[in-house]
């Protein structure tokens, strides 16, 4: 990854539901609403993975969604970042024993930041973004 300061000042996120319960998804949407407003940090929800810098994945990755998750990930232009929102994407959570899961997310694509919680509060997601930026800064430091 070619990291630079310019990159983490403006993270555009694309939201991918890999078969979640909606809980995390609505909290992601809630997180972009006026009360939390991450646009303050240049974070914006975009409609095309090609435009995105960050992939927000929710859900435990059902069998059907596995390939699509891969494909969406591949479509994103480098450099890129993956955040896994919610417990079930991290470990399967409450769906741990389902027969139809190919997850968790970390097994399908590389994940940079995990935000546990079922569902995490919007501010936990913002906290995740901030930690992601901190990680970028660290990586950038290591790179430069």
């Amino acid at each position, binding site marked *: 990854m070619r990291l630079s300061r310019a990159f983490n000042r403006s993270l555009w996120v694309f939201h*991918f*539901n*890999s*078969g*979640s*319960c*909606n*809980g*995390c*998804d*609505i*909290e992601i*949407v*809630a997180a972009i*609403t*006026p*009360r939390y407003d991450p646009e303050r940090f240049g974070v914006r929800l975009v*409609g095309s993975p090609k435009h995105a810098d960050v992939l927000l994945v929710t*859900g*435990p990755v*059902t*069998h*059907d*969604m596995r390939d*699509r998750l891969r494909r*969406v990930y591949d479509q994103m232009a480098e450099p890129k970042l993956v955040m896994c929102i919610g417990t*079930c994407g991290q470990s399967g*959570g*409450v*769906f741990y*024993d*389902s*027969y*139809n*899961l190919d997850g968790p997310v970390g097994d399908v694509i590389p994940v940079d930041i995990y935000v546990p919680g*079922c*569902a995490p*509060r919007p501010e936990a997601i913002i906290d995740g973004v901030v930690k992601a930026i901190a990680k970028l800064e660290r990586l950038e430091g290591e790179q430069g």
Partner: protein
Amino acid sequence: MSNGTKKGYSVPIGPIHPALKEPILFTFTMNGEKVEEVDFAPGKAHRGIEWMGMRRNPVQIVHLTDRICGICGVSHTLAFSRAVEQVAEIEVPERGHYVRTIIAEYERIQSHLLWAGVAAHELGFDTLFFLAWRVREESMDVIELLTGNRVNYGIIQVGGVRRDITEDQFPRIEASLRYYEDLLGKMLELFLHDTTITMRCRNTGLMNRREALELCTVGPTARASGLNLDVRQDSPYAAYGDLDVRAVMPEQYLGEAYGDVYDRIVVRLLEVKQSVEIIRQCLDMMPPGPVQFETKIPKLLATCKKAVGEAVGRVEAPRGEALHYVRMDGHENPQTWKVKASTYSNQMSWLKMLRGEQLADVPIIVASIDPCMSCTDRVTVVRDGHSDVMTKEGLHRLSVEKTRRLMQ
């Protein structure tokens, strides 16, 4: 209009698409911008919840039902609990019923506001989206106060609820009710008197009463098409029997029902008002006493283990009737568990509503039944060699009965 695309091309939408917050794959056959034919393939979010449930005990399952869907999880949990309670002959304490009702109505408020925001977003009206979600936070705060979490409340347990609503929480609840009462007039004006919204929603995604009936639609989708049905009114559960609940119909606001997207907005916004009134009634009428039939979890499990039989729990979720069928056979875990969620009942109406519409209207029409695939992606499960023939018959019987009642 000029259009360079060949006649009859098809546009796939989904399973990952900004208009669909959840995975589902639509295939549209288009003629220019017009939808000629629609097909959709749900099942992308299938997680095998019923299958998992049959490997868990009811106390665990309520947390699974919460996560059938994070938006109307309470409805599922309630329906499931009701089914188990019937099988196990558990009597929920009065106060428990009232707490359940209050939570269920708060869920309706947040869900309808959420929907209103999503609908505005689909219409490209982000300001109203932001507004709806901003005011939704008020109910989220109260829910968090009452249950300890913003989504997946985890408050309902078989036999009652896990937390009481205490007197010191009443002022906060009261404040939120007043907040919504003050706000609602403005919301109605902003949503329903806006020319651009009217242009986009009037006569869009039409479904008349007959079609709504034939397609077995439920909830606001059905009510917007003029079907007077609401589980809370038709077969009351929880505390609804004590309360005055009438199905909200679009003609109450406008004098007539078209059965279009606009009417679906009307119904949902008016239901927010209705929910506020219901909560207020509950607060006034709340009897004292315990809220849980048995607080000792091992004892509760033991009661469930003794139960044999089958039952159906029906609940009016924000999107319409959610139905859980449970069959217990003397084990801790249910022998059969079937979920029929509201979106499952409503989704066939898409085919009718979308045909002949503009591509631009697809998102709002799809959104107009307030779909969420999480609860809908299902399979029929056959367990222990028993087929679920009974289930199907049971379901069919129920639906036929319901149809008859409605036809009268």
